[in-house]
């Protein structure tokens, strides 16, 4: 449990740095740190494969591309915008709604001690489910990714 609390506090702090830091590069790096800590939390939850995929895909590929874009297209420090009060109110309301939702889920599941199946979170278990019961959504997701890639290429070419 101590491991969870250490990871959780660090993750929340990294997330706060992501949002509040002036420099976008530091924000992106703090996001990488948050993702790595979340991957560690996945390991605590016995979801080893998901943890590794989080690092490989999210922290290792997506965030690198984020950093590329930030570095190539200007990494000026953020200026605090004079936002309209309506926007700020909307942001606060959505954040409050999200917090209430998460708290409801946590409280509802508290004390839920159902034992996990023995091979939970291993590659074999995940693969077995993914390619039998959830094969069609899996294929559709990869199709969706392909559409995104093709769309990005088309948009880039049109600008040039």
């Amino acid at each position, binding site marked *: 449990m101590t491991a969870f609390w250490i990871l959780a506090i660090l993750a929340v702090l990294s997330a706060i740095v992501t949002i509040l830091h002036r420099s976008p*590069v530091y924000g992106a*790096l703090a996001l*990488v740190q948050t993702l790595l800590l979340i991957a560690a939390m996945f390991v605590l939850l016995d979801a*080893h*494969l998901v943890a*590794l*995929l989080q*690092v*490989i895909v999210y*922290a*290792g*590929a997506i965030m*690198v*591309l984020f*950093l*590329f874009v930030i*570095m*190539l297209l200007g*990494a000026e420090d953020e200026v605090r915008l004079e936002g309209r009060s309506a926007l700020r109110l909307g942001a606060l309301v959505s954040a409050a709604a999200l917090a209430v939702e998460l708290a409801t889920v946590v409280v509802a599941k508290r004390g839920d001690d159902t034992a996990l199946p023995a091979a939970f979170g*291993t*590659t074999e278990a995940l693969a*077995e489910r993914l390619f*039998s019961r959830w094969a069609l959504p899996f294929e559709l997701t990869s199709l969706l990714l392909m559409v995104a890639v093709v769309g990005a290429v088309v948009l880039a070419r049109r600008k040039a």
Partner: protein
Amino acid sequence: MDFLIVFAKCLVALLIVLQVGVLLLWVERKGSALIQDRVGANRANLLGGVLPFNLGIVNTLMADPLKLFTKEDIVPEGADRFLHWLAPFLALFPLFLTYAVIPFGDVLEIGDRTINLQAVEAGPGILFVLALVSLGVYGVVLGGWASNSRYALLGGIRGSAQMISYEIAMGLALVAVVLTFGTLDLQQIVREQGKLMWGVVPAWGVFYQPLALLVFFIAGMAESKRAPFDLPEAESELIAGFFTEYSGSKQSVFMMADFVEVAIVAALVTTLFFGGWQVPWLHRDGFHLPGGLSIPLPSLLVTILQVLSFLVKLAIFCWLQILVRWTLPRLRYDQLMNLGWKRLLPIALVNVAITAVLALALQGWTVAS
């Protein structure tokens, strides 16, 4: 007690990485000198000339690091100090971690304990390695950007683009290997390579996946930005690329990262394709030669032989990488990207497809459920 054993294993793995990284510096200098028909660094001696000949090894292992560590640490004006300090750490740390899952022996039997000679017994070992290789890009990207210098930024962008491109080919080569051996665990893969094909030849990965070996080796060399893929640190064009503005200890950390990555690629190639610590026909209780002859050996000797076998194979593949570096000319950047995306990636994909079909055929066209 268990904690002590794991700690000792991690220490051994760390020491192997450190020693290999440092020794490779000397091997590279003397090896490149050999290849280029010159002598190499040989001006250093011990204790003011007590030996009648000069020692290149003293130069490389003692004088050079000493010089690097005592140099002034310069941070360029306008550079981001924190990121400038962080980048070398990010470049080196994931590489050290990779050795945690590489098996350097079978088991060590002390008393009634059987210790698996792999620092961390990770089920999905290969994915762990891939994850750490993806994290290695940050050192390059940040090193380039945090230096506030055009050359460094260019080198950094080129380097990271190259690294993420070749990660894909590397991953696909590994997919084929995983399909062949049916497991992600590195120790298990090495154990599978102890089985014999047709009762005679040990089932090393190179016999099953020669194409994957080629793709993986080339992609591995490109990942570590070694020649012929070293345009990010092209000495004649970008001075030193993404680590131009680094001096002293930080530069030595980047250089060390280069050699540690050589060691990692060599270790992975031996583990996945050349049997890791397997000595042909050597089992835990001795040799079982194909003719039927069986030589019993004490288990400690078997373990020592297996660890030596791993180290020898590691050395061979490190030397092979050094040889390739000093033989082939550098690839231009577009040729480099071409190779990664248009040649290695399709080859690796075709390899995966063929492997999958063959694996299914050998299983009798049924899926194990």
